[in-house]
C-alpha cells in the first residue's frame, strides 16, 4: 500500500514522459488525472488508519542490500500521516494551477510527479538510508522547477536553494553514516532501521554531535533563523506550483525530520538543546514577521511569513509536551494549506498583472471581490484566527510550550500580533482604497478553475479549524509515544501539564 503510494506518482511521471511529444497539451490533464490515484490511496490510508495506535502502521519492509543493513522500510504514524495527506492534496492543485506553463509542459508535469514521489517517500521512510535518498532526491525536481520555469533570477535562486540545502544534507549524510557505524560496532552489523538505531547506546558527546548533524540539515530545510535566506529567493523566483509545493510540503521535511529523527534518536541531546532550538524558533517567529512587514514583494512577504510560522512548529517540537507536539504536527499541515493557498493567490494575480509588487496594486477588492475575499480568508487563517486552521496549531504550540519553556512561549505569542500587522497591512495596500491605476481597473475576477483550486483548500482550512479532531485523533497516540520515548531515555521530566493522557482517558462522548 505505502509502496504503491510512492510508486504510483513515479510511474505516472513515466507515463507522462512517454506521451507523444507532438501532443504537448495532453501532459497536464493526464498528469492531473493521474495525481488523483495517490490521492485516493492516501485517502484510503487516512480513513483506515487506526487511531490510538502509537506504532507505525501499514509497514512494509524489504531488504535492499543486506550487508549494509539497508532496507525498503516504510510505515506511517500519526506524525507523518497528515503530511502524506497534505502532499497528495497539494499536488493536483499545484498541477491545476499551472495551466499558464506552456514551455516544456511535459517536463514540468514529470518533475512535479517525481517530486510527489520523493516527498511521500521521505515521509514514509523508516530506514535512514532510504529517508536520505528521498530527502536529497526531492531537491532535483524542485531545482528544475525553479530553474526552468521561474522568473528572472531563477537560476540564482535555484542554485542557492540546491547548494544551501545540500550543504545541510551533507551533515545529515555524515551523521547517518556515523550511526550505522556505531550500530555496526555495537551489534556487529550496520543498520539504518530507525527502530533499531533507537536502541543504540551513544555517549552524550556522540549523540550531541549527531544531533547537531541532523539538526543542521533539518534547520536549513525548515528553515530556522539564521539559515533561512535561501527561502525568500527560492519562493520569489519559483513558479506558483513550485512555491506552493516548496512552502506547502517541502519545508515540512525539516520540521518532520526534527520530530521524527532528532527526538527519537538523540533524546538526551534534544533535551539539552531545548534552549537553543526554542531560542532559534522564537527568533525565527519574531524575526520572520518583522522582516515580512516591510517586504515590497507579495511573495517575499509570504515567504518570510513562512519563516515565522515554521518557527511555531519548531517551538512546539522543542516544547517536549503533548500539546506542543500535537501543535507542531498539525501546524505542519495547516501551514501547508494556508501558505500554499496564499502562494496560489499571489500566483493568480501575478498571471494577470505580471507583477508581485505591493505598490503596483491598490483597490483590487473593487474589481476582484472574490479574489479579495479568498485572500482575506486565507490571510486570516494564516494570522491564526480561531475557527480556522492556523489557530489550532499555533494555539496548541503556545499552550503546550508554556509549561516547559514559558519565556519562549511568551515571546512567541508576540508573533501573533506581528502576523496581523504584516498581512493586514499588505491586504490594505493591495485591496482597499480606490483602484486608481488603469492596469488594475481592467482586471478580471477569478474564473471557475481558479475558484475550484481554492475551494478544497478553503474547505480544509475550515474543517481543520473547527474539527481538527480528524487529525488530532490520529496524531495523539504517536505524539504520546514520542514523549514517552524522550522521557524514558533522558533525565527530562514532562511537566505536570505537559501530558494529555487524562484528557484522553476522559473521552467518552462519541
Amino acid at each position, binding site marked *: 500500500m505505502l509502496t504503491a503510494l510512492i510508486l504510483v506518482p513515479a510511474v505516472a511521471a513515466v507515463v507522462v514522459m512517454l506521451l507523444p511529444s507532438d501532443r504537448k497539451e495532453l501532459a497536464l490533464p493526464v498528469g492531473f488525472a493521474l495525481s488523483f490515484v495517490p490521492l485516493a490511496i492516501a485517502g484510503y490510508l487516512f480513513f483506515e488508519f487506526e487511531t490510538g495506535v502509537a506504532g507505525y502502521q501499514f509497514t512494509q519492509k524489504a531488504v535492499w542490500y543486506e550487508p549494509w543493513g539497508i532496507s525498503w522500510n516504510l510505515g506511517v504514524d500519526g506524525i507523518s500521516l497528515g503530511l502524506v495527506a497534505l502532499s497528495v492534496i497539494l499536488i493536483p492543485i499545484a498541477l491545476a494551477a499551472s495551466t499558464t506553463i506552456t514551455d516544456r509542459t511535459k517536463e514540468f508535469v514529470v518533475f512535479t510527479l517525481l517530486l510527489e514521489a520523493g516527498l511521500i517517500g521521505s515521509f514514509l521512510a523508516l530506514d535512514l538510508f532510504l529517508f536520505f*535518498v528521498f530527502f*536529497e532526491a526531492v531537491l532535483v525536481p524542485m531545482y528544475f522547477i525553479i*530553474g526552468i520555469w521561474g522568473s528572472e533570477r531563477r537560476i540564482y535562486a535555484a*542554485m542557492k536553494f540546491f*547548494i544551501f540545502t545540500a550543504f545541510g544534507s551533507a*551533515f545529515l*549524510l555524515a551523521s547517518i553514516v*556515523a550511526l550505522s*557505524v556505531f550500530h555496526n560496532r555495537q551489534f556487529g552489523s550496520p543498520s539504518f532501521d530507525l527502530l533499531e538505531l533507537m536502541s543504540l547506546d551513544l555517549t552524550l558527546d556522540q549523540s550531541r554531535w549527531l544531533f547537531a548533524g541532523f539538526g543542521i540539515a533539518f534547520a536549513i530545510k525548515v528553515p530556522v533563523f539564521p539559515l533561512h535566506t535561501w527561502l525568500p529567493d527560492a519562493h520569489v523566483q519559483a513558479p506558483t506550483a513550485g512555491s506552493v509545493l516548496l512552502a506547502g510540503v517541502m519545508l515540512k521535511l525539516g520540521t518532520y525530520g526534527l520530530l521524527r529523527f532528532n527526538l527519537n534518536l538523540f533524546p538526551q541531546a534534544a533535551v539539552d538543546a531545548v534552549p537553543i532550538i526554542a531560542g532559534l524558533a522564537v527568533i525565527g517567529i519574531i524575526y520572520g514577521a518583522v522582516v515580512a512587514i516591510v517586504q515590497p514583494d507579495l511573495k517575499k512577504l509570504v515567504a518570510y511569513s513562512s519563516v515565522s510560522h515554521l518557527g511555531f512548529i519548531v517551538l512546539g517540537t522543542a516544547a517536549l509536551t503533548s500539546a506542543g507536539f500535537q501543535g507542531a504536527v498539525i501546524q505542519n499541515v495547516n501551514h501547508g494549506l494556508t501558505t500554499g493557498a496564499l502562494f496560489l493567490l499571489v500566483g493568480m494575480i501575478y498571471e494577470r498583472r505580471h507583477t508581485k509588487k505591493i505598490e503596483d496594486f491598490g483597490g483590487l477588492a473593487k474589481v476582484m471581490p472574490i479574489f479579495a475575499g479568498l485572500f482575506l480568508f486565507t490571510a486570516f487563517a494564516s494570522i491564526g484566527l480561531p475557527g480556522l486552521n492556523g489557530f489550532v496549531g499555533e494555539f496548541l504550540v503556545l499552550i503546550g510550550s508554556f509549561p516547559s519553556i514559558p519565556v519562549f512561549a511568551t515571546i512567541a505569542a508576540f508573533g501573533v500580533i506581528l502576523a496581523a500587522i504584516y498581512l493586514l497591512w499588505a491586504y490594505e495596500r493591495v485591496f482597499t482604497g480606490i483602484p486608481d491605476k488603469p492596469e488594475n481597473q481592467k482586471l478580471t475576477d477569478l474564473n471557475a478553475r481558479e475558484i475550484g483550486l481554492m475551494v478544497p483548500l478553503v474547505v480544509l482550512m475550515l474543517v481543520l479549524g473547527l474539527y481538527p479532531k480528524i487529525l488530532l485523533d490520529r496524531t495523539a497516540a504517536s505524539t504520546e509515544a514520542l514523549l514517552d520515548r524522550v522521557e524514558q531515555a533522558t533525565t527530562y521530566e514532562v511537566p505536570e501539564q505537559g501530558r494529555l493522557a487524562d484528557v484522553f482517558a476522559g473521552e467518552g462522548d462519541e
Partner: protein
Amino acid sequence: MTFAQVLTPPSVGWIAIAPEIVLGVGAALILLFDVQYKPKRTHLGLATAAIVATAFAFAIVQYDRVQTLSQATADQAADFVATAFPFDAMIVLDANAVFGRFAMLLVTGLGLAAGWRLFERLGARAAEGLALMLLSATGFMFMASSTHLMMVFLGLEVGSIALYVLAGITRERTESDEAAIKYFLLGSVASAVFIYGVALTYAGSGSMNLLEIQGVLARNIFTRPAVLLIGIALMVVGMGFKVSAAPFHSWAPDVYQGAPGGIVGYMAAAAKIGGFAALIRILFTAFPDFISTWGPLVAGIAALSMLLGSTVALVQDDIRRMLGYSGVAHAGFILTGVVAGGAGTGEVWFYLGVYTVQLVGAFGVVAAVTGAATSGAGIDAFRGLSKRAPFLAATFTVLLLGMAGLPLTSGFVAKFGVFTEAWQAGYEWLVIVAVLASVIAFFFYLRVIVAMYMEEPVDEAVAPPGISVRASLALASLITIVIGIVPGPLLSLAGEASPL
C-alpha cells in the same frame, strides 16, 4: 630440470591471463589486418568490439573459476595455489583481478562506442588508435592482476605509453601534442618514481612479490624501516599520479582538455582503474600491517584532492577541464575508501566501477556536442542543449548527477560506501571534509545543467549522435540509475573483490 620441463609452461596458467592475451593479440591483429587489407573503419570497429567482447567472455570464465576456487577445501590447497598464482606467482587469479578486468573491459567497450566518431576522423590512423586502446587496456589489466611489483610496473608502462600516444594522436592539433608531451614527461617521471619505489622496497624487504613482502614484514620487526617507507611513499606517489590525486594531478586537466575528445573519457577512466587496482593491491596485500602509517598519508592526499579538485573545478569554463578537476576530487573520494584498508575494497571497486562508467559517458556527451577530434569544450557550447539535443542533455544530466552523488544514482551509493568505510576506520574528519567537498562539487555539476536547461540556446546545431554513441550513452545513464536503485548485485560482486 630438463630443457623440456623448462619449456613446458604450467598448463593451468593461461586462463589467468586469457583476457590480456586476447586484447594484446587482438591489437596486433588489427594492426596487421589494417596494413594488409585496408578494411573499412566500421569493420575495424566491429572487430575491436568483438575482441573486447571475447576478452569479457574470458573474464566471466575467470570469475567462474574464482568462485570455484573460493570454495576449495584444504586438501585442494596445492591445486589452489597453482591455479590462483600461476606464472611463479607473478600473476594472481582472484576476484580483485577479475573485477578489475570487468571494469576495464566495460570502460573500453563504452569508450570505443562513445568515441567512435574520433576513429572515423582519424582516417588511416584508426587502426593505430584502436590497437593502442586495446594495448593500454591490456597493460592496466595487468596492473590489476599481478602480485609482483615488476609485473605491475610493466603493466603500468604498457598502459601509460599507449595513452601518451593516444593523447597526441590528433597531432595536427597543437593542443593535442601539447597534451601528449606534458603527459609523457610527467608520466615518465612518475613511472621512474614508482619503479624507484619498487627498487627501494625490494632493497628493504628482499622481494618484489607482494605476498612474500607481506610475509617478510609479518615475520620481522624493522627497527629502522626508512628504506622501506620511502619505497612505499614513492609507490604511492607513482600511483597517485596515475589516478590524478592532488598534488600529483596537474597533468590531468591539461590532458583532459587537450587530448582528442573521443578518447579522453577512456583515457581518464582506464588510468584510474589501473592506478587504483595497483594501489590497493600493493597497500592491502603487501603492507596491511603498515596501515597506521600509510592510512593518514592516504587520508591527507584524499582530503587535499577533494578540496582542491572541487574548488578549482568551480571556476572552470571548459567542461573538459572541469571534468578533469572533478576527476581529482573523485580520486580523493575513492582514496577515502582506501584508508579503510582491506575492508573497504568492495566499496572502492564499486566506486571505481560506477564512476568510470559515468566518466566515459560524460566525455562521450562532450565529444558528441563539441566534436570527437577536438580539444576543449567551452560551457557556452552547452547552452540550451536541452532544446537542441534533448537526448544528450538528459543523459549528461543523469551522468553529472551521478558524479555529484545524488541519491538514486550509482554515485550516491558509491559515496555512501566509501564514507561508511572511512568512518568505520576512524577517519571521521575525512568524511566531514568529503561531504563538504561534495557540496562544493554540486555547484559545478549543476552549472552545466543550468546551461543546458535554463539558459537560452546558442544557434549552433548539434549533429545527431550515431547509433553507437547513443547506445553507449544510454547504457552509461541506465547503469547509473539502475545501480543507484538496485546497488545490491554490484555491491556484492565488488565486495568479493578483495585481493588475496
